[in-house]
């Protein structure tokens, strides 16, 4: 174990020893997540934060995809279930949350698998995919659909407006 700790320490120090902008290949960051047992990815550029185990306050008589309200750095935002929005059955309460960059909205999902930094050529467009997952990451034979957070935010806005108009 002492050798492994030394290796970790060396790798960390070496990263800071290398010159900045040394890498010529353009990389894009994604979060690897699991929704209902299936592997998905979220573009980090579309989110403002990753959170785990936040308490969600449920509201009565809400839509199935709306889980409730949660607080993030002093701001209360609505939380939606990614599983329901992607047409999958909701089982246990999701532990992980991401807050959208475009609007004060959070989306909940089952599992956080890791941070990915991939080249742009691994991003493919799938014609037959859903409107929320038109892109995907193809890595080592595994296709990981990318959840379009911006599209979801727009859809949530439309639903909210429709609900508000229905309420008026």
């Amino acid at each position, binding site marked *: 174990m002492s050798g492994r700790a030394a290796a*970790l320490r060396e*790798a960390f120090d070496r990263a800071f020893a290398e010159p*900045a902008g040394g890498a010529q290949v353009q990389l894009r*960051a994604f979060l690897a997540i699991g929704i209902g047992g299936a592997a998905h990815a979220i573009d*980090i550029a579309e*989110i*403002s934060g*990753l959170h*785990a185990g936040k308490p969600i306050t449920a509201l009565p008589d809400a839509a199935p995809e709306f889980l409730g309200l949660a607080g993030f750095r002093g701001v209360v935002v609505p939380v939606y279930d990614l599983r329901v929005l992607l047409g999958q059955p909701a089982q246990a309460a999701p532990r992980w949350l991401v807050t959208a960059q475009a609007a004060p909205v959070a989306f909940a999902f089952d599992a956080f698998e890791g941070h990915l930094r991939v080249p742009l050529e691994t991003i493919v467009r799938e014609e037959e995919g859903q409107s929320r997952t038109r892109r995907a990451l193809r890595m080592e034979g595994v296709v990981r659909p990318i959840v379009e957070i911006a599209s979801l935010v727009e859809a949530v806005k439309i639903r909210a407006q429709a609900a508000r108009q229905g309420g008026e």
Partner: protein
Amino acid sequence: MWTFGRKIGLGFAVSFLLLLGIGAEAYRSLESLAHTSRLVTHTYIIIERLGNITNTLADAETGLRGYIIAGDDVYLEPYQGADRALAGQIKELRDLTSDNPAQQERINRLEPLITARLEAMKKTIEIRRTAGITPIIESSKSGAGRRASDQIRQVANEMEQEERSLLKRRAEEVDTARNGGTTAIVAGTLFCLLFIGFTGNYLARSLSAQIGAVVSHVQSSAAELQAAAAQQATGAKESSTSMSEITTTISELLATSRQIAESARRVSGVAEQTAEGARSGEDILQAGTASFAGIRRQTEQIVGHMLELGKKSQQIGAVLDMVLELAEQTNILSINASIEAAGAGESGKRFGVVADEIRKLADRVSGSAKEIRGLIDDVRGAVNVTVMATETGAKGVDAGARQFEQVAAAFKKIAGLVTTSTDAAREIELSTKQQATAVEQVNVAITSTAQATKETEASSGQVLQTASQLVVMSGDLLRLIQPRPA
């Protein structure tokens, strides 16, 4: 039910009593007749004595008259004899009528009259002797002498009449006694004859019926006895055959008993060797018990150490959970830092690099922690398995120790039993020797019994023959008692 003797005895007893009654009545009648006869004789004697007195007195008077007329003393002899005899006759008459007060009273009257008459005769004789016949003739004219004689005869007649009436009464008593005796004898004899006839008839009928029934029963019993005797004869024959087989079997048993006695002697020797081995094994078992106690202590120490190791592994797991939590939080923080850095533009790039490296470090720490968690889980699993195995082993050791103790106890018991078995084997050896001797005696006895069985077989044949004869005899006896009409 009355027996024959009782019935016959009763019949004879009643007949005897009847005859005794008849005899007693006859005896009483005879006694009465004899008594009456004696009384009659007594009465005739009194009458005779009374007649003697009057005759004596008449003779005296006759002699007196002759003397008066002739003056010769020869004629005075009757008077002198009467003077001497009358006193005795009166006394005799008084004695004879001592049981009759009336006659005694008459004798009391008669005796002075006779005395006075004799005194008058005496005076007359003196007068005749001194003065001659004349004064006597003169005095006889007065009639005093005749009146005195009449008074004497009157009293004598009264007494005779009294005795005659007694005779008549006693004759009547004789008739009464004779009639009573005759009636009793005739009626009693007739009744006795009737009773004897009736009793004889009854006894004949009763005895015939009872004896007939008994003889019939005897006949049927004799028939059953005949069947039983036949069965017994068959059984005796079978017994004789069986006894022959038993004799053969006993001979074989005798040989077997001798073999058993020899085997028992060998078993006794082996049992002694076994007892010696059991004593050695007991020492080994005690050493084994001590070893089990040592194993038990060591196992308890291992269990304690393993439980301590499991506890430590649990603590390490808790620390590792904390490290994982920290790595995850670091990872989240680094991702959020990267996002913030990306939003900060060019100035955030360097910060983004740092955040990225921190995230990588957190990833590696997380991976290492997960790997350690796996190792810890493996260690805990191994510890649990070891603890369980050790506890199972400890339980096994306990069970083994208990079983070993049981084995030791059983072995001790076996050693005791082996000692007992040795003694028992010796006793068996002795007993089998005695048994062999007893079997020899039984063999002799069985041989004798077989001989007796053969004799019984012969006797059974004789019994069968006798039973057959008894059947025939009972039939004859039944025909004698109850002859059947042809």
